[in-house]
Structure formats: structure tokens, C-alpha cells
């Protein structure tokens, strides 16, 4: 199994409630996978302040204050390191690339869980509800959020095996299912110089999409390419700096339900994860069709 949730807010009045709504969605999907969980939050003013770059770092060995000092010295910018569970949310004024390079140099043992202008990624091994409480997810704000509860099948239960996979700037991918030919595609991407953090099948999908976007394709074209190249079962939720997209494989045995109102678009593995959303009783509710790409843009 595995559970997926995502919430794309259209009504700014709901931005302060993003974390609260996402926490409820994630907790409801705990029964679909309780070995690991993760979230991506777009636009939280404390985690990813406007004008700052943000890098989410897992399992860094140095204490947060020491890492902040080292990064401030390395970049010349005022770097903040906020510990949330076992993730450090690192942010600083300026562009993301120099901050990302400094983080990789200062904490080479750590896993970069995500990076971008307004994206924070938190993921770990553990029960989804307990992790959400550790992260203080209910207090998070923002315009878009994605979550995943994992029941591992294709790779080990480790923080690097947890979703989301946020391997391109402000991008994020979560997956319910399994890719059958991930080893082949991983070899092809490695031959192109793409570096992997894990042996996980989903990471291959995320790297494939990131590479396609870096090559200049739009999300829809990238996902069409994924449908053509990847064998296996998948419901995917792919978010980007301005968009939110859902795609399912041709067999479509992995569930998905979308609800849409004037105030928000939400997607989840099951309706029960949406039952608490404001106005859901009047939402347009549908199941995405196989191999059709559904995308919403901010």
C-alpha cells in the first residue's frame, strides 16, 4: 500500500490552516503505511521565508547551531538552521544553489531531502501521526502541501527511502505503487550523470521527472514520458513551484480520488483523508482516469 495526500489551496484565507488540514489528511492515511512518512510544505513563512532559499537536511551529524555557524562562514549570508524532528530546515537570504552547495560540503554525510525557494520537506522513519506532531506540522502555513505514508516494498525502511522525493528545485513527488524497471532507468540516468541517494524505485521516478524538467519539458510532457518509460504500478502526485499534478498507470489499481472546490484542489488515496476539508460536501469529487495527466496551476 502507501498513502498519498495533497492539498493545493486557491483561497488565501485558508493558507494559515494548511498545516492543520494536511496533518488531518496524513493521519487518516496512517493505516495505508505506518513505517515512514513525509510531507512537503510550500510557502511556510517560518520554514521558507520569502526571499530566502531553503534546504531540508536529514540526519546531519553536527548540532544545528554549529552547522549554522559553519554555513554562515561558508556562504557569507546569515544562515538559520531550524531543527524539526531529525530534519534541519536550513534557510538563508539569496539563491538556493550556493546554499545547497554549502550544505553538501559542510554536511556530506547528510541527506538533502528537498530544496527551493519556498519548499520545506520533512520525512523520516516512524508513525505518521507521531512524526507530524514532532514536526509541528499542524502549525504550518502555506499554499500547497503534499504528504505520504509509506508501507515499504521496494527498498529498506530508512529516512532516504521515505517519500517525498524532492530532487529538483521546488519539486516534489510522492508515489503509491512500485516501479518494475527502476534499475534499468536508474542505470540510464546514472550514465547521464544523475546522482542517486538511495536504491528506492520512487527516487528513479523523481529523478526522471526532474531531469525532464531540467531539459525544459513541462510537467505534463514529463509525466507522459514517465508513463511511456516506466513499467509498474503507480499513482503519483507531482508538485512544483506553481503546480500540482496527478497521474495513474494504465492499470490504475492504486487508488486515487480528487476533490475540487473554488477554494482548493485536494487529492488522496482515499476519500476519508478528505472528509474533514472545509466545504468537501459540495466538492466535485472524481477518480482520475488511467494515464491521463491532471494538472492544476497556481
Amino acid at each position, binding site marked *: 500500500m502507501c498513502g498519498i495526500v495533497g492539498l493545493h489551496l486557491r483561497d488565501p484565507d485558508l493558507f494559515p490552516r494548511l498545516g492543520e488540514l494536511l496533518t488531518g489528511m496524513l493521519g487518516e492515511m496512517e493505516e495505508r503505511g505506518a513505517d515512514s512518512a513525509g510531507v512537503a510544505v510550500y510557502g511556510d513563512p517560518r520554514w521558507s521565508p520569502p526571499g530566502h532559499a531553503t534546504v531540508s537536511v536529514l540526519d546531519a551529524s553536527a548540532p544545528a547551531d554549529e552547522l549554522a555557524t559553519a554555513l554562515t562562514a561558508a556562504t557569507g549570508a546569515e544562515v538559520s538552521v531550524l531543527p524539526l524532528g531529525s530534519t534541519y530546515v536550513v534557510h538563508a537570504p539569496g539563491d538556493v544553489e550556493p546554499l545547497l552547495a554549502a550544505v553538501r560540503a559542510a554536511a556530506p554525510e547528510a541527506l538533502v531531502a528537498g530544496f527551493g525557494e519556498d519548499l520545506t520537506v520533512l520525512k523520516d522513519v516512524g508513525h505518521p501521526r507521531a512524526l507530524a506532531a514532532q514536526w509541528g506540522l499542524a502549525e504550518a502555513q502555506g499554499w500547497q502541501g503534499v504528504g505520504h505514508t509509506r508501507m515499504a516494498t521496494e527498498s529498506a525502511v530508512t529516512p532516504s527511502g521515505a517519500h517525498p522525493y524532492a530532487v529538483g528545485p521546488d519539486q516534489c513527488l510522492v508515489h503509491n505503487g512500485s516501479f518494475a524497471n527502476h534499475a534499468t532507468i536508474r542505470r540510464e540516468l546514472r550514465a547521464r550523470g544523475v546522482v542517486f541517494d538511495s536504491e528506492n524505485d520512487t527516487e528513479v521516478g523523481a529523478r526522471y521527472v526532474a531531469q525532464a524538467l531540467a531539459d525544459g519539458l513541462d510537467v505534463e510532457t514529463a509525466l507522459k514520458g514517465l508513463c511511456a518509460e516506466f513499467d509498474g504500478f503507480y499513482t503519483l502526485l507531482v508538485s512544483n513551484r506553481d503546480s500540482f499534478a496527478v497521474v495513474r498507470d494504465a492499470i*490504475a489499481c492504486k487508488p486515487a480520488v480528487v476533490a475540487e472546490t473554488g477554494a482548493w484542489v485536494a487529492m488522496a488515496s482515499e*476519500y476519508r483523508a478528505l*472528509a474533514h476539508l472545509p466545504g468537501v460536501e459540495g466538492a466535485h469529487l472524481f477518480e482520475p482516469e488511467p494515464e491521463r495527466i491532471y494538472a492544476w496551476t497556481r
Partner: protein
Amino acid sequence: MDTMSSTQLDLGTLSLREVNRALHEMTAGEVAVTNPRGAHSVAAGLTTPLQVTIAGHCGYYAAGMNQLADVVVDGTAGVGVGENMMSGSVRVRGNASQSAGATAHGGLLVVEGDAAARCGISMKGVDIVVGGSVGHMSAFMAQAGRLVVRGDAGEALGDSIYEARLYVRGRVASLGADCVEKEMRPEHLAELGDLLARAGYDDDPASYTRYGSARGLYHFHSDNAY
């Protein structure tokens, strides 16, 4: 609990197990189940002629394994609504997710909206009437029963079908292996008219096309190997 009066069971205050246990202890009467909020297995395993209405959207396996009861889902239903039903009826007022009526042996399943992929997969005698369209691989390996689709059918309808009869009014995207179009004889028009009437529709049976098994997969033939 043994009552003919109307009973209300609120999933907002009672646990799923409490609600299902209360339903299992009743032998007759009308019951309204409120606040399902997408819960799984609501009103599953009923064995008596209750009249149950579930007010809202249900999760997986709503009214699964039903015997004798008449269950209405006043909302959408998740995966496997009415799966393995033996008798009675299940009516979904909205859409149903995949595998509606899976493996069901008897009774009547009506989905007023659309049913997603694999509707009637491995059906073994159930009658299914879908007001809208059905997704891909519906009636996959169907063994007995009737599937009526008032709208369109997705890819690979009736793949590897044994003996069920399929009636589709709209377009069929493609037929699965060993599923073929068949002649509508008077007995088919009559049984389809009866099924539509039981489901509450008055379409002209002659506007439907019948599909069923070519029986080419019943015996081994080297040309059947892929």
C-alpha cells in the same frame, strides 16, 4: 436489538465495529447510518432483510458480502462496493470506485453514477446495473450474472469472460480477449427490460448491444498462448 422501527446509527459517535455489530444483531427494520466519512466496510456482512441507508460517502467494501439486506449508499462508494454479495440489493446514488460487485454471487447492485475500472470483476451470478459508464477491464473473468451499462464501457470489456451476459447501451472502447458481440434475441430483450425496471430505468432494451464469451479460451489451444 430486534425492531421494526427506524433506527439511526451515527459513525460520528459510534465506532465502525459498534455500528456493524448493531446492524448484525437486527433482524428487520429501517436503519440510517450517518457520518460514514469514507470509512471502510460500512454495513458489511449483513444477513437479514434490513433496509439500510448510509448517508454520505463510503470507503472500501461498503455492504460487502451482503445477504438479504437492501443497502443504499447516498453518496459515492470506494473500492469493492457490494463485493461478494450473495443476495439482497446495494444501490449507490453517486459514483463507485474500482471493483464494484467483485466476485458477487447474487443480488442486485445498482450504481446510479459511473463505476470505475474492473466493475463486476470475477462476478459469479450478481446482476449489476450501472447508470453511467464503467472503466476498463469491467467484467474481467466474469463467470455468471448480468452486467448492464447505460453509458460507455472502457478498454478490454469482458476480458477472459466465462459465461456472464453484458449489455451496453453506449460505446465500448475495446473488447477483451474472448469477448464478442452477440445477437439480442427476444429472451435477452426480456431479461434486460426486467433488469432495467428493477433498477428503476425505462430505457428501450433494443438500444443495447449484448456481449459475451466466444468460449475460445475454454480449451487449451496453442494459438491462445501469448
